[in-house]
C-alpha cells in the first residue's frame, strides 16, 4: 500500500513489520519522531514488543545487547552525539556478534552544537565492526530496515541503517508499505545459536586471553585475536550474503537492484560522481543538466559502506576518466573517508591496468548547510574540466 509519510515513519513501519520484540532508544533530534512512533505502536498493542525507556544512548544499546543476547529481535535508533555516546557499546555489540539493527538518522556532531544533517556521526563509526547501509529515499529506508534484519541475523553482525536527518527523516514522500505476509515470508523468526538461559548458563565476552585456551569440554577455544579475525573474515563474506538478501527481497517484494551500488547514467559516462545517501539522488538532477550540455557524467550511490564493496565499485568505475566523490563528512587532517576508501579500491583492482581514474573530493552540506542543486552542478562540471584542488574542496563555504 502506498502512503505519504516522512522518513522516520518509513523506518518505524519497517521495524514494526519485522516484529522487533524489544525496543530501547533515547530520543534525540532528528531521530525522535521515529522512537515516538515505535512507542505508540507498542502502547496501542500494534507491536507485541517491550519498549524499555532508558536514561541515555549508552544504556539504550546496553539494553539491546542484553536483549539480543537473550535471543530476541531488537531495535534502536539514534543520531549524532547520541551515537557517539554509545560508542563503547557499539564496539561491544559487534565483538559479541549480536544482530542488532539500529537506525542512524544522520546529523552533524558537536562542537559547535548543531542539529542539522551531515554524515560525520555514522562515518566516525566506520571501524567499529558494524555493517553500514545508506538510504537515498523513503522506499529505501523501509526496504533496507527489512533487509537489514535478515542480513544481520544471517551473518551475526549488527547493522546501522543510515538516512539523512531532516532531508529524509522529516520530509514527506510517497512510498510502498509491504504487506505483513510478504515480510513474514522474507524474514523468519530470529533463532540464535545460543540465547541466555538459566538452565544452560554461560559467561559471554568476559576476559578473553591473548592466546587460545581449552574450554571446559577440553576443546580448543578462540583467543581474542581469533574472535576478531572471524569478525573481519565474515564482514568480507557478508558481501556475498548481501547479494543473496537482495535476490530474495526482489523475488518476494518485486523491487531491488544491485545490492552494493546504485549507478545512474554511468555506462557511457566519462566522469562519475559518487556519494552516500540522499545526496546521490540530488546529483541525478545535476547529471541530467550536464548531459544536456553534452558532458558525459553519471552518478553512483554507494549503498553498502561497510563491508566496503571494493570490487563492485572498481568494476563500475573501470575505464572512467574521473571520479568525483561528494561527502558530508571527512577524516579531519586528510580527506573524505569515502574518497580514501574508493582510491584504495581503485588502486587495488585497477593499478595493473595502468588506467586509474583521477579522483577528486568535494565536501558539502556540513552542519545542514543548504546544498543548492545549481551550485552542485557547477562544481561537478568544473571537476570534469580540470583538477579543482588537491585538497578536498568545500562547496558553499563562505569564508
Amino acid at each position, binding site marked *: 500500500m*502506498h502512503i*505519504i509519510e516522512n522518513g522516520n515513519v518509513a523506518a518505524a513501519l519497517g521495524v514494526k513489520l519485522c516484529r522487533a520484540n524489544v525496543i530501547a532508544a533515547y530520543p534525540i*533530534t*532528528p531521530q525522535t519522531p521515529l522512537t515516538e512512533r515505535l512507542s505508540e505502536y507498542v502502547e496501542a498493542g500494534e507491536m507485541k514488543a517491550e519498549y524499555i525507556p532508558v536514561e541515555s544512548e549508552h544504556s539504550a544499546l546496553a539494553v539491546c545487547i542484553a536483549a539480543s543476547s537473550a535471543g530476541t529481535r531488537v531495535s534502536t535508533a539514534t543520531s549524532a552525539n547520541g551515537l557517539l555516546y554509545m560508542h563503547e557499546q557499539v564496539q561491544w555489540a559487534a565483538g559479541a556478534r549480536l544482530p542488532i539493527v539500529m537506525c542512524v538518522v544522520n546529523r552533524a556532531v558537536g562542537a559547535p552544537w548543531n*542539529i*542539522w544533517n551531515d554524515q560525520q556521526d555514522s562515518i566516525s563509526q566506520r571501524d567499529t565492526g558494524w555493517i553500514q547501509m545508506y538510504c537515498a529515499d523513503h522506499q529505501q529506508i523501509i526496504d533496507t530496515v527489512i533487509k537489514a534484519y535478515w542480513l544481520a541475523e544471517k551473518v551475526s553482525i549488527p547493522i546501522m541503517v543510515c538516512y539523512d536527518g*531532516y*532531508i*529524509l527523516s*522529516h*520530509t*514527506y*514522500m*510517497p512510498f510502498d508499505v509491504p504487506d505483513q505476509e510478504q515480510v513474514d515470508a522474507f524474514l523468519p523468526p530470529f533463532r540464535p545459536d545460543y540465547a541466555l538461559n538459566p538452565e544452560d548458563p554461560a559467561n559471554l565476552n568476559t576476559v578473553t586471553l591473548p592466546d587460545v585456551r581449552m574450554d571446559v569440554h577440553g576443546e580448543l577455544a578462540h583467543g581474542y585475536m581469533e574472535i576478531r579475525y572471524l569478525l573481519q573474515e565474515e564482514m568480507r563474506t557478508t558481501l556475498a550474503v548481501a547479494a543473496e538478501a537482495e535476490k530474495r527481497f526482489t523475488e518476494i517484494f518485486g523491487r531491488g537492484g544491485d545490492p552494493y551500488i546504485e549507478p545512474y547514467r554511468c555506462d557511457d559516462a566519462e566522469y562519475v560522481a559518487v556519494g552516500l545517501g*540522499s545526496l546521490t*539522488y*540530488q546529483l*541525478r*538532477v545535476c547529471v541530467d543538466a550536464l548531459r544536456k550540455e553534452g558532458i558525459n557524467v553519471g552518478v553512483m550511490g554507494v549503498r553498502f559502506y561497510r563491508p566496503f564493496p571494493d570490487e563492485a565499485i572498481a568494476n563500475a568505475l573501470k575505464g572512467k576518466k574521473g571520479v568525483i566523490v561528494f561527502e558530508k563528512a571527512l577524516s579531519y587532517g586528510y580527506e573524505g573517508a569515502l574518497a580514501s576508501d574508493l582510491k584504495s579500491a581503485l588502486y587495488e583492482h585497477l593499478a595493473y591496468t595502468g588506467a586509474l581514474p583521477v579522483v577528486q573530493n568535494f565536501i558539502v552540506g556540513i552542519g*545542514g548547510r*543548504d*546544498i*543548492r*542543486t545549481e551550485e552542485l552542478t557547477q562544481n561537478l562540471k568544473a571537476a570534469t574540466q580540470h583538477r579543482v584542488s588537491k585538497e578536498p574542496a568545500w562547496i558553499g563555504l563562505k569564508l
Partner: protein
Amino acid sequence: MNKDFIEIRWHGRGGQGAITAAKIVAGAAFVSGYAGVVMAPSFGTERRGAPVMTSLTISREKIYDLSPIETPDIVVILDHLLLKEADVTHGLKPGGIIVLNTPMAFESYHFKDYKLATADITAISVEAGLPHGMVNTGIIGSLEKAANLLGIDILIQGIENEFTKRKPEKNALAAKLAYERTVAGG
C-alpha cells in the same frame, strides 16, 4: 503555470497546521496521479507562534531533488500578519499566485506581477464550527479556487481522511465555504 511540476511554499506559524495542510494537498495530488510528491518542512526551528515554512513540490515524475524550493509557483499564507514578518514573495515566479488568509478586503492589497487570492478563513472556519484560529483546512479551499490544481472534491476527500476522528465534516465545510468565497484576481 506548468501543471506537470508545481512548487508551493506555505507560510504559517508554529502550531497552525501548515504542515498538515500541505500533507493533505500532497496526498490528493498523489491520488490524482502525480507520482512525485515531496513535502519538506523548514527544519529545526518549529516553535508555537514563530513563522514557519513548508515547501511542497508536485510532479508527474519521481522527484530526486529534495533541496528547498527557491522559485515557487504559489505561496500560501495562513496569517496576513506574516506579510510584515517574512519575505513571503521571495523567489515567487512572475505571474505566481499568492493565497492569503486575511480579514481585510481584496482591494486593500497591491502585489505587482502576482495574482492574489484572499478570503477571511479565520471567520469562515468559525462559521463552519471549528475553534477560532483553525485555518489549515479552509486555506486548502482558497488554494484550489486560486490555482485550479486538483479539483475541490478530491481535496475535501483528503481532509475527511486526515481528520477522521477530529471533526471531519466541519473541516470539510470550512474548505468548501472558503472555496466558494475566495476572491481571486485575474
